[in-house]
């Protein structure tokens, strides 16, 4: 097995765009290297370089200081390099065991697949994350039946099943809850001690500082800094990534208004039940920014979808004092609701259609017959500009945008309708630091304009820094409500885990 991998002066172009112009990376066994950078800085391309997915336009890879060519993912795998991808590479129709051992099935002496052996090995792998599953996973469960976080875990297990010496974790924690992340980090420490090397790609600063030994920062395709984590703090690291220091000063904004008690009620929910929610009741006043916290999959998604009329539910919902029963998102939209769904590719965007059509999808009716395209373009252009959307033009497909900009399109299509109540499902997932900061100031501004926001985030820092109050969901009920003094990270995590019964400690 190899001891180290180095990338020197890597150049990679996609068409006319230079994704990497001077990429450098050093990994040695027994260490975790954090590969950090804003979206579009070349992180994903860098991981694709190390695992042989892309062909280099320049530069050289060295394995144990000897030049090496990685012509395909297979050749990288043979050299002991495995990748956990952000976009899942699992086949939904196949079972957990079939996915993990695909093309490497253990065989019997007769040349048939050794099912017993597969089940045994799969169970061994599954036991690594024992206790973090919602229900126990069996090797024969189809992958399609698992929630997103557990699919991600299977993806991780698939990567380590080849017993690699170098593991690339590309945003592998983005869809995991805090318990699963902790377990993964325990495993990473264990792998490190066992002499493996890990490249950790993440947007979450806190995780990077928790797990990484070294860092390597990419900015606009160039490696602009690297060193030991112990020699740098969060602020300096972010500064390296975005140059402009000011962007990160979102948290604890002065615009957090403590007293909104005099405002009228915008949303009143009583005894909301769905298949996963077991009686949710809460009130939100106009202009409030209320967070929803908790571990992933505790009913947050169902809560937002029910309010929006996209999920069958029972219970009483009052919008602006009037009882409302929505059976279709259309009805909710007419009352001024808007939903930014959690999975922008599958729920929020029309990938092959233009940015213009995506922005206008909920609003076309306003433009009459025949549609006033010029006016629509004008309005969409204004929204795109106000959101600082980086694009080649409104007629380009959404698939040409980076993650953060694609998310801006999802938010932009609702801002065009001037909604009064915004439901957000983890809008900053997989979004770079710079864009996140833009979102934070956008949300704060919207609240100051009197709009109401209900905001689920898997990032605890975000909830604490941004929200007036946080409702913590656990197992389909509101476990705790945190606000003001009680809104601290310790309380939030405790309540998420369902350990303590009071944020109001």
């Amino acid at each position, binding site marked *: 097995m190899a001891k180290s991998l180095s990338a020197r002066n890597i150049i990679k172009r996609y068409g006319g765009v230079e994704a990497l112009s001077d990429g450098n990376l050093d990994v040695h066994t027994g260490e975790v290297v954090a590969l950090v950078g804003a979206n579009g800085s070349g992180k994903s391309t860098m991981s694709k370089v190390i695992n042989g997915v892309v062909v280099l336009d320049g530069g050289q890879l060295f394995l144990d200081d000897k030049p090496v060519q990685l012509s395909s993912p297979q050749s990288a795998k043979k050299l002991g390099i495995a990748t956990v991808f952000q976009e899942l590479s699992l086949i939904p129709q196949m079972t957990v065991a079939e996915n993990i051992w695909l093309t490497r099935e253990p065989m019997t002496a007769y040349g048939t697949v050794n099912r017993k052996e597969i089940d045994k090995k799969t169970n061994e792998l599954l036991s690594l994350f024992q206790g973090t599953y919602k229900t126990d996973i069996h090797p024969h469960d189809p992958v399609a039946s698992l929630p997103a976080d557990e699919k991600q875990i299977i993806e991780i297990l698939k990567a380590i099943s080849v017993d690699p010496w170098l593991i690339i974790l590309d945003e592998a924690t983005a869809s995991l809850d805090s318990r699963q992340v902790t377990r993964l980090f325990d495993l990473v420490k264990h792998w490190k001690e066992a002499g493996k090397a890990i490249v950790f790609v993440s947007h979450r600063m806190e995780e990077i500082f928790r797990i990484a030994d070294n860092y390597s920062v990419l900015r606009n395709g160039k490696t602009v800094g690297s060193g030991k984590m112990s020699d740098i703090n969060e602020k300096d690291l972010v500064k390296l990534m975005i140059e402009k220091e000011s962007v990160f000063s979102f948290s604890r904004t002065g615009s957090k208004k403590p007293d909104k008690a005099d405002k009228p009620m915008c949303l009143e929910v009583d005894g909301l039940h769905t298949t996963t929610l077991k009686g949710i009741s809460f009130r939100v006043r106009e202009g409030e920014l209320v967070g929803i916290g908790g571990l992933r999959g505790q009913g947050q998604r169902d809560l937002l979808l029910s309010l929006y009329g996209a999920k069958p539910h029972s219970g009483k919902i009052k919008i602006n004092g009037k009882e409302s029963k929505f059976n279709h998102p259309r009805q909710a939209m007419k009352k001024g609701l808007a939903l930014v769904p959690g999975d922008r590719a599958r729920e929020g965007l029309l990938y092959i259609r233009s940015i213009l059509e995506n922005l206008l999808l909920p609003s076309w009716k306003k433009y009459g017959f*025949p549609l006033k395209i010029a006016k629509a373009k004008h309005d969409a252009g204004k929204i795109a500009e106000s959101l600082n959307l980086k694009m080649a033009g409104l007629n380009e497909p959404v698939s040409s945008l980076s993650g953060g900009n694609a998310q801006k399109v999802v938010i932009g299509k609702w801002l065009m309708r001037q909604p009064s109540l915004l439901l957000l499902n983890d809008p900053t997932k997989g979004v770079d630091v710079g864009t996140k900061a833009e979102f934070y100031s956008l949300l704060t501004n919207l609240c100051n304009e009197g709009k109401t926001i209900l905001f689920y985030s898997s990032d605890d820092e975000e909830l604490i820094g941004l929200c007036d109050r946080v409702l913590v969901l656990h197992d389909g009920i509101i476990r705790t409500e945190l606000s003001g003094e009680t809104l601290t990270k310790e309380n939030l995590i405790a309540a998420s885990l369902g350990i303590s019964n009071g944020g109001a400690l």
Partner: protein
Amino acid sequence: MRRFHLSPPVAALILAVILFILSGLLPNGFGSNLDIARSQATNIVRLAVFLGVIAAGQTLVIISGFEGIDLSAGSVVTLTAILTYVYVNGQDDKVLAALLISFAVGAIIGLINGIGVTFLKISPFVMTLGMSGVVTGAIIVVNHGNVSGKVAPIMTRIIARPISQAIPIPGAIVIWVIFGVLMWLLLERTTFGKNLFAIGVNRVTATLSGVNVTGMNLATYTLAGALAGFGGFLLVGNTGVVLIQLGQPYLFPSIAAVAVGGTLLSGGKGSYWGSMAGAIVLTLITSLLTTMQMPDSVRRMVLGATLLVLISIYGRQRGLRQ
């Protein structure tokens, strides 16, 4: 480093022009006589009209996605052609009513398709194939194989004859151009059109953005049926006679025309201009091979091969792939 990029409708039209010019070199071609060339070109476009109109409904259901297709179009064409033929029976004053009946009968059959696809969750392929059988059977049951009737003179005059002595363009082509503009308006300048593309790409996104996917699906199949009905009306106005296999030969070419026009068969992307160009290309190739006195078997082979080549070229283009 942007690659040179041709949109499929333009590519199909260029292909049609090249094929047409080449056809002049054939022994039975127009040679260097421009008058003959012009009348041949007009004739080919006139023949393409009927395929083009039948392909309009097909374009809509294919754009609507989720394996959307209308295999009942051929039999609906036959049905409304026969209805028109029998009902009009040579009387000019019944033509308008016959036109409305054609639309309505097609729409009802389309609506049933839509209900099957939307509520009973039958795959469009199976649902419309079944419907095709039902309609064909119904035609035979109702008229016992004997059809007596007559096309009204006004239909022949408007559809099949040139508009006037001075302008030697058949009415059918004028109707088709107007029809094409209406289709463009529908697809690109109405909320219906925009929502149609949306449900073709991603129905979850569409629903969460307030699109009534169920209603859209029903409306699309109904409209497709109505357009096929209109196709039957036009076709009988041109042929002047009906037979039980009148519409069926147009079914697969109508799907092929949509594909040649660059509309994604998986839905969410396409245009009616493309289908029009596709209809012209297919009609041209067929008539070329006929002029060359190729046997039917060779005609089918060449047509099939052309389709494969065109679609594989589109498949290689940026943007049509994810």
